[in-house]
């Protein structure tokens, strides 16, 4: 692959003089890159409409596998579990992250600030499998066997940094003069927070909540290790389907989950972009 690096000085062949900093073949490389990035997704969606029992053998167009997936009780239960876990984890993680971000962005320089920042972003730095093992051992050591609640606790923990980052970014990009103006006009600290800071911060909170929802919905390894029987989430169920054999039913379920994620990420993108453009004006 490396011999196709566009950096190789193709300029000597020079048919047309390129501006400085431009390289021949960069555009083609980018096209190749995006094909690589999207090919698996296209293939996955395409084969979900396969009428055949085997994923790889094309047996004509059909939506039978979607119907079958929607009627599958186990899938329905897994979807419910995923939704419950993601919703509860998002609410808690976002609330905890919001308070943490407010303190870290507005609390000035206090002792332990760097340590606190490190602790909140710890779940991002530790490999997921290590987190999974640690949490599994911990729940076992304290003999906590509450089914879905175990899963929810683990999800809240690793969702906090994902909710935290957009909120903190928003807070640091915010102009504090509005808050100061409110204080000058005799708004109490609470009023300033409720009527000035919170509305301005809202896009960050929404973005953080959406990210943690997607992260929780998509988590696999930690849930696989922590979830007992009966608390299977959708990704864990998909994994067991893959191990049993490849049918287009997997593709159908995956396609639905894929579109849910894409929809949420697109919404996140729009929210954070409008927030940006509003902040500029």
């Amino acid at each position, binding site marked *: 692959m490396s011999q196709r690096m566009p950096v190789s000085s193709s300029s000597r062949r020079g048919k047309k003089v390129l501006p400085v900093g431009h390289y021949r073949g960069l555009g083609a490389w980018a096209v190749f890159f995006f094909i690589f*990035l*999207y090919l698996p997704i296209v293939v*996955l969606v395409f*084969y979900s409409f396969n009428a055949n029992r085997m994923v790889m053998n094309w047996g004509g167009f059909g939506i039978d596998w979607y119907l079958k997936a929607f009627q599958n009780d186990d899938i329905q239960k897994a979807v419910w579990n995923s939704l419950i876990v993601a919703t509860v984890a998002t609410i808690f993680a976002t609330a905890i*992250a919001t308070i943490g971000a407010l303190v870290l962005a507005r609390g000035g320089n206090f002792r332990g600030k760097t340590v*606190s920042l490190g*602790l*909140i972003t*710890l779940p991002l730095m530790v490999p997921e499998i290590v987190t999974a093992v640690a949490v599994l051992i911990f729940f076992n050591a304290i003999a906590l066997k509450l089914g879905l609640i175990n899963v929810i606790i683990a999800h809240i*923990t690793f969702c906090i940094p994902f909710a935290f980052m957009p909120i903190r970014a928003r807070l640091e990009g915010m102009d504090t003069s509005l808050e100061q103006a409110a204080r000058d006009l005799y708004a109490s600290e609470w009023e300033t927070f409720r009527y000035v800071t919170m509305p301005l911060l809202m896009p960050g909170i929404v973005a953080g909540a959406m990210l943690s929802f997607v992260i929780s919905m998509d988590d696999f390894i930690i849930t696989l290790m922590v979830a007992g029987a009966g608390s299977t989430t959708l990704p864990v169920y998909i994994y067991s389907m893959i191990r049993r054999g490849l049918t287009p039913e997997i593709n159908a379920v995956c396609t639905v989950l894929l579109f849910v994620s894409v929809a949420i990420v697109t919404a996140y993108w729009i929210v954070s972009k409008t927030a940006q453009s509003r902040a500029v004006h």
Partner: protein
Amino acid sequence: MSAWLPKSAAGRCWLGLAPSYFVIGIFMLVPMIIMGVFSFLEPNPYGGVRPVGSIAAYVKLFFEYDLDNNLVFNPGYLNIILRSFQLSFGATILCLIFGFPVAYYITLQPEHRRNFYIYLITIPFWTNLLIRTFAWIIILGRGGVIETPLLAAGIIEHSLRMMYTDGAIAIGLTYSYLPLMVLPIYASLEKLDFRLLEAASDLYANRLEVMTKIVIPLCKPGIVAGCILVFIPCLGAFIAPNLLGGGKKLMLGSLVQFQFASARNWPFGAALSMLLLAAVVVVLIFYARSARMRAQEEGSG
């Protein structure tokens, strides 16, 4: 604010941070410490541990007992660890070769189009890793998207057997973490002053020199950050080696999971996790040191 809140600013700070400390401390930091303790205990044959101190888990990394109960060197696990490092390193290099030109290409675009490209790169990243890796089975597998047309056209006569190879794992890893390489490189390239490139060119630097002497040194922080962001999750990867390596070509991540799911040797699994954690800490220290050195260079220069 309200009367029940602490009066001092510092007190309030700690009150606000308390929930974060509570959740991450209790459910992440304490578990990691317990994991460290477990790695020095004896395994219980049915999973879990017995409260007897032992370094057997760490000995098992390098040695095994032969029939006469003598300790002999066993490279089996060491090979898995080495392969994990090799594959992670390979995937990181592939991501760099693949991602850097694209990050650079995006920087050259007008601003509204840049945002759209970044959006396109983040979309696969936020979609389920398991699903994306599963899609590669359909592409690489026997009778899959690559093989079938080649077989039909008579270009190849037999299956290419691409699945369950190290190559398949490397492709899966590269695909999984590619956005983590592109985004930090793009972030540092975005700040690049393109007048520097023109200046270099005016001073008779050719295109290759402009790239190697101006662009790459200036976006080195982004490159280093990208490499670390790719390397660390690769090292602990579970999905790609399990689905594309068929569970036979193990990597550290899948070996750890195996200790808890099937082998029921918790201390060994914990010891392997500690090893993984140590590798991450080493990488992060290296990163912090290079960042500090860079800051010093900028400060003095």
